[in-house]
C-alpha cells in the first residue's frame, strides 16, 4: 500500500485530473437525479392522459400544454388560490421580519430583568411539536370565527422562535456596540436605533429569513388543509391536492401542469433571493 502511494505522488497532477473528471461526472449524475422529477413534470404537463398511459413512456415534450392549462383553470380557481397563497406568504413574511428582528435586537443588545429566563423559554417553545396544538388551535379559531379565513393562517405565524434565535445570532456579530452608543449620544431612542442603526446592518440576515419564511408559507399544507374549510377559498397547495384523484381517475396532464405552475413564483423568489444574499454579503465584506 505504502509503495503504491509513494509511486503515485510524483504524478499527482495527472491523478487529480482523472479523479476530477470522475468527480464531476458523479456530481452531474446527482444533479440529473435532483432535476429529473422537474423534467418529468414538464413532459407530463405537455401530454394528454392517453399519451401518458401509453408504453413506452414519452420522454420528450408533447403539444398539449395549453389544453392541460385550460382544464386546470376549469377545475380549480388557480389564480384565486394563488392570490390567497401570495396574500398569506407576503403578509407573514413582513410580520415575521418585523417582529422577529425587533425581538432579536432586544435579546442581542440589551440587558433587562428576566432576559435569560425569557430566552430559555423561547428555545423550549421551539421544540414543542406542532400537532399537539392542532385540535385546540382549530377550536380557538372556530370560537373567534377565523375558520375559513386567511387570518387563521397569518396571525399565528406572525412571529416565531427560529427567526428570533437566528436574527439574534446575526445581530450579535453584525451590530457593534460603539455604533449603538454613538447613536445614543446623538439622542436616538430605542425605535430609531432599531430602524436606522440595526436594520440597515442586518439586511443580508433579513433577506435570508424573509426568503425562508416565504417559501415555508408558500409550501405549507397541513394547517391550511384543516382550517380552510370552504373548498372555494383555499391556498394553492390545498387546491392542488384537491385535483389529485377527485374523479377516481386522475388527469395527470392537468395535475402536472398545476404542480408546475405552482412552482414558478417559488422559483422566482428563490432565484431573486439567492442573488440578494450574495450581493449583500459582498457589500458587507467590503465594509
Amino acid at each position, binding site marked *: *500500500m505504502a509503495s503504491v502511494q*509513494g509511486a503515485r505522488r510524483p504524478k499527482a497532477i495527472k491523478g487529480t485530473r482523472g479523479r*476530477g473528471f470522475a*468527480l464531476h461526472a458523479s*456530481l452531474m449524475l*446527482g444533479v440529473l437525479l435532483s432535476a429529473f422529477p422537474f423534467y418529468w413534470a414538464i413532459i407530463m404537463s405537455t401530454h394528454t392522459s392517453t399519451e401518458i398511459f401509453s408504453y413506452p413512456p414519452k420522454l420528450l415534450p408533447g403539444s398539449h400544454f395549453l389544453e392541460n392549462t385550460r382544464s386546470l383553470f376549469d377545475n380549480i380557481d388557480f389564480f384565486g388560490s394563488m392570490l390567497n397563497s401570495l396574500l398569506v406568504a407576503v403578509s407573514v413574511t413582513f410580520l415575521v421580519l418585523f417582529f422577529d428582528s425587533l425581538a432579536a435586537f432586544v435579546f442581542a443588545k440589551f440587558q433587562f430583568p428576566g432576559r435569560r429566563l425569557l430566552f430559555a423559554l423561547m428555545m423550549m417553545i421551539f421544540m414543542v411539536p406542532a400537532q399537539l396544538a392542532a*385540535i385546540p388551535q382549530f377550536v380557538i379559531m372556530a370560537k373567534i370565527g377565523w375558520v375559513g379565513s386567511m387570518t387563521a393562517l397569518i396571525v399565528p405565524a406572525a412571529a416565531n422562535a427560529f427567526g428570533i434565535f437566528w436574527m439574534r445570532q446575526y445581530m450579535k456579530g453584525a451590530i457593534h456596540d460603539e455604533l449603538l452608543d454613538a447613536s445614543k449620544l446623538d439622542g436616538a431612542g430605542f425605535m430609531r436605533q432599531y430602524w436606522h442603526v440595526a436594520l440597515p446592518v442586518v439586511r443580508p440576515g433579513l433577506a435570508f429569513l424573509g426568503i425562508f419564511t416565504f417559501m415555508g408559507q408558500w409550501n405549507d399544507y397541513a394547517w391550511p388543509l384543516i382550517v380552510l374549510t370552504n373548498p372555494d377559498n383555499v391556498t394553492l397547495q390545498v387546491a*392542488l391536492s384537491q385535483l389529485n384523484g377527485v374523479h377516481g381517475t386522475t388527469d395527470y396532464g392537468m395535475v402536472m401542469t398545476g404542480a408546475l405552475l405552482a412552482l414558478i413564483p417559488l422559483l422566482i423568489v428563490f432565484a431573486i433571493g439567492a442573488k440578494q444574499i450574495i450581493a449583500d454579503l459582498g457589500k458587507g465584506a467590503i465594509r
Partner: protein
Amino acid sequence: MATVPALEKPPVVVVEAPVEAPKKGILSYWRLYAAISPFYLLFLAFGLIPVGFSLYVSFHRWDGLGSMEWAGLSQYQYLLSDSDFWGSVGNTIVIWALATFPMIFLALVTAVMLNSAVRFKNLYRFAYFLPNVTSVVAVAIIFGSVFSTNFGLVNALLQAVGLDQVAWLNTPWGIKVSIATLMTWQWTGYNAIIFLAGLQTIPSDLYEAARMDGAGPVQTFFRITLPLMRPVLLFVLVVSTVTGLQSFSEPQILLQTTANESTFSGGPDHAGRTMVLYFFQQTFDNNDFGYGAAVAWGIFLVVVLFSIINWRLVQRRREE
C-alpha cells in the same frame, strides 16, 4: 468654529444622566418588553393555551361540537391497546428508516465530493438544494405518477429490462418504499449542504498528515472525516428523526387517490398510515377530538423516546 464643539458637548452629559437614573424600576424597560411581547403573546394564544387545552381534551370524550364528557384515563388505556395506533407507529418507523439511512449516506458522499470539487460549486449547490425548496404537494403528485402501477416510469423501466412490474402504491412495502424515496430525494441535497459546511471546518493539514502517513481516501474518510463530523451527523440525525416521525403530507397526498376512502387512510391496508395521519383520521374523520388529543400526546412521547434512544446510541459509540 472652535466654539461649536464646546457647545455641543455639555448637553450630551445631560442626556446620559436621565437614561442612567430610572434603571432601577422594571417599568423603565417597557420598550424592551413591548418589543419582545408579540412573540410571547402569540405563543400564549396559539401555543401554550392550545397545548394545555389538548391535555384537558385528552381526558374527555368529545366530538368537537357537543358537550365534553369526563373520561379519565380511558383514552390513554385504549391507546395502549389500539393495534391501529401501534401499526401506524411501526409504519412511521419503517418509512423513517428506509428514508433516513440512504439519505445520510448519499448526503455524506455528495458533501465529500462537493468539498473536493473546485469548479461549478455554486451550480451544484443550487441544483442540489432545489428539491428541498419545492413544495411537498407538487413533489408528491409527481412521485405519485412515477410510482404509478399501470403507467408509472419506474414500472416502465422495470418492463424495459424484462422484470415484473410492481404495484408500488398498492402493496405494503411498495407504499413504504415510494414514500421513503420521495423523502430521500427531497432531503439529500439539503443535508449534503449542511455536511459540506461541517467538512469545511476540518483543517486541511489533518488530511495532509494522513496522506503523508500513507492513508488512502477510504481510511481518511473513516479515521478523520467521520469522527470529526459526529456533531453535525448528530444534528442531522436528530432533525431527520423529528421531521421524519412527523411525516404527514407525503403519504397523505401520495395515497389519497382512492376517492371513496378517507383522505387520511394511508392507502391499501393502511400501509402508509403514519402516526400523524392516524391522528388526523381520528380527529377530523371520526370527529373523535378526545381520542385524537390522546393520540397526539402518544406521538409526542414516541418522538421524545426515539430521540433519546438515537442520542444515547451516538453517545455510547463516542465513549467506546
